[in-house]
């Protein structure tokens, strides 16, 4: 009788699972908080891992440049092409550069860069650190006296925080070129006139907001990737989960941050 009463009913099982997940969620938040605090403690305290930082900048920034450039060009070209019919309805084709500039500078450049980086860089960081955790390389580093957090996490997070704004700038510039190519092919506008119209509706606030967004996105991608990889477990399965979790979480957070920053910067307009 006692044994029967100890067996949980399906309802109890569901409640337990939910409670367990909720507990895990808040525990994760706490761990992420500790992880971020530790990053700020470690990142700006010597000794600095400059060589590793440069290497990570190379991996994150330079290695992503081609992908980002192609994506930026396609975004600029396609966005211009798709926007034309709507503006042509009002006979406002001349507004295409202005429309492209607002879209690229305020939203597309940082967002597209962050999403591409989430996929490429986030997953890469998650998988790399995850495999290092699973193969106990991180533990070995601790044993050998090297601070793995400083060497692995701080350098990667700093690299993403530094290079993603730069990549977003490239995306904006190449997107501008893509937009110009499309407008030039259809409307025959000169580059000077295009650039003038491109910058006409922009304000310094747009530049600042775009820069802030890119920095926040870069930091988020780095932190999420490192966190997922640094605390991965369950062997090789954990490596895949870390890579996947890094991409999904980073993308999700990027969108959430986009909404918040747009709301904040909107108050300054």
């Amino acid at each position: 009788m006692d044994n029967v009463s100890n067996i949980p009913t399906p309802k109890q099982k569901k409640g337990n699972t939910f409670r367990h997940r909720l507990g895990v969620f808040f525990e994760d938040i706490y761990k992420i908080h500790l992880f971020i605090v530790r990053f700020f403690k470690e990142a700006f305290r010597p000794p600095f891992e400059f060589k590793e930082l440069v290497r990570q900048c190379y991996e994150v920034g330079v290695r992503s440049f081609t992908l980002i450039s192609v994506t930026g060009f396609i975004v600029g070209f396609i966005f211009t092409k798709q926007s034309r019919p709507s503006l042509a309805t009002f006979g406002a084709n001349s507004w295409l550069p202005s429309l492209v500039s607002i879209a690229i500078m305020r939203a597309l450049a940082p967002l597209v860069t962050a999403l591409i980086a989430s996929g490429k860089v986030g997953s890469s960081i998650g998988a790399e650190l995850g495999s290092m955790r699973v193969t106990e390389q991180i533990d070995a580093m601790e044993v050998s006296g090297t601070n793995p957090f400083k060497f692995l996490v701080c350098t990667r997070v700093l690299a993403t925080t530094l290079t993603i704004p730069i990549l977003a700038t490239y995306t904006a510039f190449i997107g501008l070129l893509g937009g110009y190519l499309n407008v030039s092919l259809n409307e025959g506008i000169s580059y000077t006139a295009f650039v003038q119209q491109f910058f006409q509706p922009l304000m310094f606030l747009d530049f600042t907001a775009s820069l802030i967004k890119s920095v926040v996105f870069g930091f988020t991608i780095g932190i999420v990737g490192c966190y997922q990889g640094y605390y991965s477990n369950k062997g090789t399965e954990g490596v895949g989960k870390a890579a996947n979790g890094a991409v999904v979480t980073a993308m999700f957070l990027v969108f959430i941050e986009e909404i918040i920053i747009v709301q904040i910067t909107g108050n300054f307009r």
Partner: protein
Amino acid sequence: MATTENRKAITVGVFLALGLAIFILGVFTLGGQQKSFEKSIHISAIFDDVAGLKKGNDVWFSGVKVGTISNVRFVGISQVDVTMRIDQATQQYIHRNSGVRISSDGFIGNKLIVIDGGSPQAPVVTDGDVLQAEKVPSTDDLVKTLQQNNQNLLAITTDFKLLSHKILQGKGTVGALLADSTMGVQLRNSMANLQAATGSAAHLAVQLEAFSKKMNTKGGFADKLLTDTATFNRIKGAVTQLQQAAANATVLTNNLNKASNKLNTSDNTIGYLLNDPNGAAKVASTLNNLQQSSVKLNEDLEAAQSNFLLKGFFKKKAKAKADSLNHK
């Protein structure tokens, strides 16, 4: 290994430097467009309604962007003070009596401020000057006018609908004209008459044209009248003589009138003879007496011819008469 690391470091350096350069270039381009890094002055204007104008919008002078809106704020009860940052290089062209109005970049474009007018006699604007704002019809005003026009159009079409309905029912002159076949026939006849009259008029016009051509023919009477000075002088002289004759005739008529007036009175001899019956009787009596006297005188003269004293004279006279007859 070290070379690879160096190469990576250089690549990263170039990557970061280029990215920063592009960003700074963008900032400077934007600053150049907004004239943020140029020397500028601030002028303002007060509007009742700014129609959505906001900070950062353009300021145009003679169709050229010369600055941007730097501030928009409420003043007084409900007026709006718009402060404009104007490029100092264009300051010399903007005068204090220039007008400021709100316009837009195209029909659906951004709002902007247009500075226009101003005379060279007025001094140029300086920092802190307030320009006179001009009120221009807003889009709402245009829509209101359009709505009024629509209402008028509706009223007109309603009236026309009633009118056409009445016409179809055969009411009124036009309706009767359309419905009554007799009137149609009459109208057709009238039109035929009108056409004939028009034809006659055309014929007359042709004749008049021919006549005018003849008048213009060289050497003709009309041409001589118009061009020959000798003929003109003769005609002028004849007209003068005619005028004199008419004047004389007038005088003569007046005299005759006066004489006839006198004949109607009895204060003169003829008037007395014509108008007084007693005078007429006296004249008749006198004439009678004269007749009787002449008869008696005739008798006396015949008696005198028989007198011896005068007998020789009469014989000589008779003889001379007979001689003259014989000579012939």
